[in-house]
């Protein structure tokens, strides 16, 4: 396993981004790359890339059922990864960590196992106008199957979650609240702990979609006291194909299995099958062993950098970006900024976001353009598309400066006089 060199001394609230960046081979291989699409997926540090390769070279075998040494080592690495995730989220018990493909699968699992079992016709599920499609469509499917009602918490004037409306919309019929921890289009951070208290006071369970939060904020599921938490590994510097569903043990205990097959059963006859305890009950088939191990290496990397350091860095950089964009003529930043982290959406007068992305790409500035899998939010904002820049552990002010330069170039290109 490749170990990181000790962190360099940091200046002020920041850390040595140049050092961090050297740990991400993508920047060496793509000189000049200005990567501003971390909210879609993060780049991977050397320790993750090399660690997965090393695992396959040295310790790989299928897990759980092997008596021989290689399989015991593989199992120890895999279950060790689960413990790493537990520690990272400060879950009470390792059995509360279910490995899934990503947040989307985690949300579908909750909807189809917990939701289909415990929700009844007429029950309400509270979502917000900030949600990613992955936290909308599974609930729509369930609504159509069970006759639920989806209630949508609107935005406040800054484009964040309207907490007063949240409180008002919580009713005795609200059985579940499912809300993003950080909005993927605007970077708005919701007051998660307060929402959990409000939901619990009304007797509702609450799920937080932590896709954008886990890479940016220290997250402590026990302090939050949320019932469910989902995340995607590829967004926090880990490999694709792996994510986590956290749920309180008592809730997992009551949930029936969703997918079924090997590894999640106790006995099988053709008449009857009995199931394992959590988390195995929810991990049918051979799991993504190297994915789990890669995720643990990514979390270790984040821990080594320091999670409050990361948050402070993202905060400073987000502020810097919003401030710079706000002063540019013809540029509009989406949503007000005080509570935004890691993500900035914007539009440029006269240049469609899609065209911006193409123009930026010519100067190696990678941003995302479109609806960002949040069409209902775009409808609410009255926008068909935005350009979105998002930051990671390896981003710095020079990336923002490159973005500003690229916006100016796009404006020059599009504002030129042309022959009709």
């Amino acid at each position, binding site marked *: 396993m490749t170990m990181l060199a000790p962190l360099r001394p940091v200046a002020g609230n920041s850390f040595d981004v140049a050092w961090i960046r050297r740990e991400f081979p993508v920047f060496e291989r793509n000189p000049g790359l200005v990567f501003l699409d971390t909210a879609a997926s993060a780049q991977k540090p050397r320790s993750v890339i090399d660690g997965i390769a090393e695992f396959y070279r040295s310790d790989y075998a299928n897990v759980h059922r092997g008596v021989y040494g290689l399989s015991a080592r593989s199992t120890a690495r895999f279950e060790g990864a689960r413990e790493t995730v537990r520690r990272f989220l400060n879950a009470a018990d390792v059995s509360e960590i279910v490995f899934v493909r990503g947040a989307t699968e985690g949300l579908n699992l909750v909807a189809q196992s917990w939701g289909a079992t415990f929700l009844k016709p007429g029950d309400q599920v509270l979502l917000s106008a900030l949600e990613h499609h992955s936290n909308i469509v599974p609930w729509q499917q369930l609504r159509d199957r069970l006759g639920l009602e989806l209630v949508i918490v609107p935005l406040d004037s800054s484009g964040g979650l309207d907490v007063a409306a949240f409180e008002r919309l919580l009713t005795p019929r609200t059985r579940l609240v499912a809300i993003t921890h950080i909005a993927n289009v605007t970077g708005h951070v919701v007051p998660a702990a307060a929402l959990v208290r409000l939901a619990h006071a009304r007797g509702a369970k609450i799920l937080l979609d932590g896709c954008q939060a886990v890479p940016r904020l220290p997250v402590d599921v026990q302090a939050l006291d949320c019932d469910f938490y989902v995340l995607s590994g590829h967004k926090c510097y880990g490999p694709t194909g792996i994510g986590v569903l956290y749920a309180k043990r008592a809730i997992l205990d009551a949930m029936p299995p969703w997918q079924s097959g090997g590894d999640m059963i106790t006995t099988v006859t053709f008449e009857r099958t009995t199931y394992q305890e959590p988390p195995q009950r929810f991990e049918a088939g051979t799991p993504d062993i190297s994915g789990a191990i890669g995720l643990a290496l990514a979390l270790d990397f984040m821990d080594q950098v320091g999670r409050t350091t990361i948050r402070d860095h993202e905060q400073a950089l987000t502020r810097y970006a919003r401030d710079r964009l706000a002063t540019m003529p013809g540029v509009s930043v989406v949503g007000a900024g005080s509570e935004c982290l890691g993500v900035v959406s914007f539009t440029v007068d006269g240049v469609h976001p*899609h065209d911006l992305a193409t123009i930026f790409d010519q100067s190696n500035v990678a941003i995302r353009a479109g609806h960002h899998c949040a*069409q209902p939010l775009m409808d609410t904002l009255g926008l068909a598309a935005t350009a979105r820049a998002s930051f990671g552990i390896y981003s710095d002010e020079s990336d923002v400066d490159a973005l500003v330069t690229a916006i100016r170039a796009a404006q020059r290109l599009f504002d030129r006089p042309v022959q009709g």
Partner: protein
Amino acid sequence: MDLRELYQDIILDHGRHPRNFGALSDASHFAHGHNPLCGDKVTIFVKLDGDRIVEARFEGHGCAISTASASLMTEVVKNKTLAEADALFQNFHTKVTGGEQIALPAALEDDGDRLEPLAGVKSYPARVKCATLAWHTFEAAMHAGSIAAAVKTE
């Protein structure tokens, strides 16, 4: 490649001032088109007289490429037969995807040339769908008989 090759004057002009923009109240055919990956949307309205296109208009919102492509398309298909419009689409398609060129009948060469400014997208694979959305939607409108249809490109 120089961005001016992609964003030629004619593209920006049609992007800013699309021709034939707005619904056609007496359309005989129409279809909605959608590119779900970027959110571009277009509706194509056509009025046929026999197999001749007597009017073509569009509505929607999208990037400069997709708007200019819809605008130029409505211009060139007007007063063409369905077979001629199809020949123009085939030719255009190879132009923007960089496939093997399909020759146009002499009578359509001028119209083919008018679409030339969009050929720059072939160097931007992610943008080819922007250029072809209007055409796919036009085709869907024709195939739907006189019933509305919806297509999407991804």
